[in-house]
């Protein structure tokens, strides 16, 4: 069973670029690697009704952040 709390009101997390942010996507538990390019990433904060993930691409994982940032790493069970 997933231990993740659902996103509030199914609203999207609002990613934005912020140079040298102290809360970059690289340290966020919702972020996983880009399939090809390790300088990019994917945000998995948006969870579907069925428990899947509607991902968003992150162009620059070191200088992007949002208000859902949470330090940590999710289990593989909670990803797609």
């Amino acid at each position, binding site marked *: *069973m*997933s231990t993740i709390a659902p996103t509030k009101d*199914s609203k999207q997390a609002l990613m934005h670029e912020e140079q040298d942010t102290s809360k970059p996507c690289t340290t966020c538990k919702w972020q*996983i*690697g*880009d*399939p*090809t*390019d*390790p300088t*990019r990433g994917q945000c*998995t904060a*948006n*969870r*579907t*009704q*069925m*428990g*899947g*993930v*509607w*991902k*968003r*691409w992150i162009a620059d994982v070191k200088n992007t952040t949002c208000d859902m940032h949470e330090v940590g790493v999710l289990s*593989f*069970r*909670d*990803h*797609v």
Partner: protein
Amino acid sequence: MTTLAENIEYRGKVIEFPLDNPEETDIADDMLHENLARPTTERTKRLKARCRVKHASAGEFIDKDVRAGIERMRFITEAHKASEGQPEVIRRALGLENILNKSTLILQQDEFIIGYHAEDPEMFPLYPELAYMAVQDYLESDYSPQPKDEAAEICEYWKPYSMQAKGERYFSQEDLSRMYQVSSMEAPGFATGYNSVVPPYETILEDGLLKRIEIAKGKLSDASKDLEKIPWNAKQLELLEKIDVWNSMIIADEAVINWARRHARLAKIVAENFETDPARKTELLEIADISHRVPAEPCKGLKDAFQAKWYTYLLCHAIDRYASGMAHKEDELLEPYYNISVFDKTFQPMTHTDVVEMVEMERLKVSEHGAGKSRAYREIFPGSNDLFIMTLGGTKPGYVDACSDMTDAILEAARNIRTTEPSLVFRYSPVSREKTLHLVYECIRDGLGYPSIMHDRLGTEQMKYYSQFSKNNNGATDEEAHYWANVLCMSPGVCGRRKTQKTRSEGGGSIFPAKMMELVLSDGFDWSYANMQLGPHTGTIDNLKTFEDVWEAFRAQYAYATSCVIRAKDVMRYFESNFLQMPFISSLDDGAMELGQDAVGLCEQPNGWHNPITTVVAANSLVAMKKLVFEEKKYSLQQLCDALKVNWEGYEEMQRDFKNAPKWGNDDPYADPIIKEFYEDIIGGTMSKITNWSGGPVLPVGQAVGLYMEIGSRTGPTPDGRYGGDAADDGGISPYWGTDKKGPTAVLKSVAKVQKNQKSNLLNQRLPVAMMRSVHGFELWKSYMATWEKLDIMHVQFNCVSNEELKAAQKEPEMHQDLIVRVSGFSARFVDIPTYGQNTIIARNELKFGSDDLEYMDTKL
């Protein structure tokens, strides 16, 4: 207590379904798979208990002790630096030589087939000469090779020489960025390092490497004489490259012999100095003898054959270069040696049970085989190490049954030992013998998810079809066309001493119609994942006035993507031929040897293919739009797009309408003609216009693996009623999960309609456990298969597992380690799949066979 299937009234009788094995009566439904393993010997029981699987999911390894090794990187780099100035093909051979001469050898307790591809059984090698991004990803992960500084330096050294750096130069930044997304197209092989190969195992088993060296030396001698001919003719300059190729073969083969003999010496040292168990000591000396003789000499018995095959596998799939798969026709390859050892007993005498044990040991070696794949490929085969697929069954020339006792031994071992890999493909023919068919059924009934089934005649005729495009007019003969195996999950390719597929650049790789469907409705712009122009401009909503406009817009998106990815493959092929040669494989290929050409660039038998994945989402979307927008005019296209942009929120009635529109897989008179045309005209018709490196067409192989989940997660809502992020369809031609409502024969009737311009399409079906385990299970399955075969359907694969068991495993994964499921194209340990992926498997409809279905299949109960 086991649940029995409900009675059915059929042909005037009430049919009951008592268990085929009454001893299963007291096994709870949710623990069945934990009670099915029966390793043939105590040894294979021990080997299974300590088996170090290397399953990956969501890009991560399940076992945190698994990591990348450094030796291969180090030794290939050393050799590359030392060989500067030499011909590239010689440098490749010297690289292999350095790795084989210096790498740490692994000899594990209890094993008989020996050899590993990294310096530690928990490790796997990396390939800095392929994709620098893939190596960089490892350096930043928990699986980095150590010391990390050295690995980083090696990665930096190789960057300018890498396939990725070479390939990238010939694409715009825009095209690269689009391919690297893996949302409408898979990333190029030069950016992932992913590969497949069909090694000529037959040559090494039949000839041995000493003979191949002798042939190459003979070629060199002839070439030298030709070069020295008086008067000189500049046409002889053609010989210079050939001389390099033959020389590289000799270097590679001598290195392989030396490497095998290093293993022999190690086994002898352990036997004579460390082993205290007399039986094991004798065995180690036998192992030493085998590795001294093979693969230098021809195999004389079945134990030789297994060991020579394993060394060849390690070299072709891991040490020389990474390649997924395990393509070969294992039963026919080993049958002569089975006959020598089991029937004649003239060399390495064995019983049939000994052979079953040997196959179990091979399966466990494969289960420990780790792959240093890029992140994308660590995502898309969740719950497994990699793809390893062998082919059995089928027919020989004249459509004579090719099944043998060796086929049966492989199937018995698979059934007994229960591992997720290697997977098996069975080539089904009406002449396949009953005894073997029963074993195929037992494996499927036991929930292994394999063998998947391929249509023997269609595959054979396909090889003949491709043969006509051979650039040197030496494609597969009608006889050779019978000897084929699946290159990976789904695509037939010839096996044998010559003409086999040597690189994924010939066939393989994916494109994603569901995402293209999204792009059609947004003028090529990816609003839902990457916020960028992902495809060509094919028109705004205002331009899409008719269904035909939508159809052609989709074709344009698809044509762009297919040409892009196959161009990427051919660019890769160009650089593979010049910088990533494979002297060892070339030495085994009779064509490469005869012609003095490296096997990677040689293309005697074209086999071009590419995998559309998520096709049914696009197909169902077209049907829904045609009906609701363009015919009934209940909604406008703009209204539909508005609803999609907010993920149907506030448009619930519209979402229900689109979800309830006719769907594929129900033998539906509205949906099926549209979808048939979609597959044949666009998916196959557009792709087949492409001519690839080998001079042949490229045809679609509909697939899914775990990409149906990955691409679903990068695709917004679609007009079939799907929500953004939801998984897509789980097969190449399977109905979208939960939408096949008319029973199993309706699915077959739908699928059978799609015939033109296809190479293969994956059909994922789920069999009812209670019926399959009953006294009527085999007859039911046999009649289903006979129907499938007559309908000329290329493929089918099965899950046979109850939702009770799957849900119990979700709650207590540690109690369900033996629970295997068929994801799509491969099998996986269920508890090593992420929760959402597990839920998509639970959601798949189980086939409900009613009396109408039985009547259609003419089932004899």
